């Protein structure tokens, strides 16, 4: 008797409370739909709509055919790739130096705190800081002029161009790398090094054949994350170059201010193209991160 009534009550209750339970997360989903999903959907639908509200693929095709847009994408990708690689390398070496590199412990917490600050120090203040450093009358520019009688601006350097913007981006790129890589380097077990040495491996062999293969997914993943980090940046570039360097975010900004492309749909498609690239880079990051975790626990 008891056995026949129990399943019935068990079947009935989850159905009611199962739906009722979702009420608890309703505010969150409502917020997400209103201020995240709906705006994104608007851009997504808009990028496939022409002036008369009809479905079209022209906007997406135009991204690849209109040279100014394509150039903006390429420029953004270039600058993101350069700063991701550069920031990735510097960040890795720094993370290395405080983890397995044998520097005193306190230096690590100093570096991590500094990295937390610097990876959040972006936008207008960062641009101003670099103008004060490497601008025409900046600290380092003047220092070089006075010490070595060498004007960096006479030798092709320009803070308000590609190189300058890259150097500025690196300021928030490599700290992020430090923050991601330091825990990963901690995951390298001493036993692996000892095992390699027992088998007669030298330092170089250990790094190339043991440590690197283990770290590689994590390294690649972090660099991809840095890529996305730079790709979405807008304020820093705008404050530094005043829109002279037409990266994709700045083009989109111009499109929001006024329909400079004379085609709203094309503007939406441009935005969606960015989201597409960002999604790929984040997916790549999380996939590689998953592969890393098999080893580094």
């Amino acid at each position, binding site marked *: 008797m008891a056995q026949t009534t129990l399943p019935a009550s068990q079947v009935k209750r989850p159905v009611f409370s199962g739906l009722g339970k979702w009420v*608890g997360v309703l505010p969150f989903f409502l917020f997400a739909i209103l201020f995240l999903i709906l705006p994104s959907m608007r851009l997504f639908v808009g990028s496939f709509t022409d002036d008369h509200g009809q479905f079209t693929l022209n906007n997406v095709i135009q991204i690849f055919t209109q040279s100014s847009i394509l150039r903006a994408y390429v420029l953004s990708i270039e600058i993101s790739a350069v700063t991701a690689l550069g920031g990735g390398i510097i960040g890795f070496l720094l993370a290395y130096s405080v983890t397995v590199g044998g520097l005193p412990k306190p230096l690590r917490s100093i570096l991590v705190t500094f990295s937390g600050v610097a990876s959040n120090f972006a936008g207008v203040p960062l641009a101003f800081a670099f103008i004060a450093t490497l601008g025409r009358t900046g600290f380092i520019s003047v220092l070089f002029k006075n010490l070595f009688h060498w004007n960096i601006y006479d030798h092709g350097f320009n803070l308000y161009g590609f190189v300058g913007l890259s150097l500025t981006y690196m300021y928030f790129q490599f700290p992020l790398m430090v923050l991601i890589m330091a825990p990963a380097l901690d995951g390298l077990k001493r036993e692996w090094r000892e095992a390699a040495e027992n088998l007669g491996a030298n330092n170089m062999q250990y790094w190339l054949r043991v440590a690197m293969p283990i770290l590689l997914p994590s390294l690649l993943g972090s660099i991809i994350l840095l890529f996305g980090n730079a790709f979405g940046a807008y304020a820093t570039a705008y404050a530094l170059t005043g829109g002279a360097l037409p990266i994709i975010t700045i083009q989109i900004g111009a499109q929001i201010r006024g329909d400079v492309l004379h085609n709203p749909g094309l503007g939406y498609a441009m935005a969606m193209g960015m989201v597409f690239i960002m999604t790929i880079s984040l997916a790549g990051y999380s996939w590689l991160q998953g592969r890393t975790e098999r080893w580094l626990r």
Partner: protein
Amino acid sequence: MSEELPYGWLQFARNRFKRQQKPRGEKRKTPVWSWVWYILGVLYFVLPLLATFEFSLRMKRGVYSLAAYKAAFADPAFLQAFGYSLTLAAITIIVSIILVVPTAYWIRLKLPQARRPVELITLLPFVIPAIILVFGLIRIYSSPIRLPFSSVVLIDALTTSRYGTIILIVAGYMVLGLPYMYRSVDTGMRTVDVRTLTEAAQSLGANWFNIMVRVILPNIRTALLSGALLTFAIVVGEVVLASYLGVPAFGPYLFLLGQHRAFEPAALTFITFLLTWAAMGIIQLVSGGQGQVSGAH
């Protein structure tokens, strides 16, 4: 065969000996390259700050003074803009906590199957940069939203009214801070056993409001502080949402000031840096080095 065994043992013993010797030997050796990387990294961190600080002191010709700081603080527009940003940050933090804490709590306690969709949503801001978010928000909320197939207005145009704009920008900032806020709250709840705490509180007769405010919130205060300070760091200098939504916040103010002044922006940049540092330093302090990573650029 019989000759190989002793040799193998010898090898093993020698390696053991080497392994025991090695740490002592390594400690005495100075890790030269680690120091080189570390010092280069520190220079990259410090030089722009030093340059900004030095520049901000040069307002009076030929002598270092705090004149730029005095001038910057004396501007009533600065106080207004900065106060505005502080208020926005406070509202954003409070509403974020009200939205995120019950959601994370509910998922942990009653609705684990909602974890994946919610986590996915909290990752979305990483693939939707601020410039795209504001693009979508403006396009959705610049005209009244009607009930489909009717003229019944559900939500009036938000971008045209003062309070509407505040709702939009707070929602936008909540979206930007969402990954960090959710992550730290969720981590905080993992470390304290919310289920046991809830049951204990319930058995003492506490209602849901009391459980939330007097049991859960105090127990995750470290996580809340991290999330709040990170949100603060994002909001205070933010310029993209603020300028496109036309909000008189500190970011746009600093940007405009930079267009026609030299020394005051440098002074304010340095102040911004100190604020970011204070926020990150406190996070580092309370979370014992397990703090968050990075904000929006």
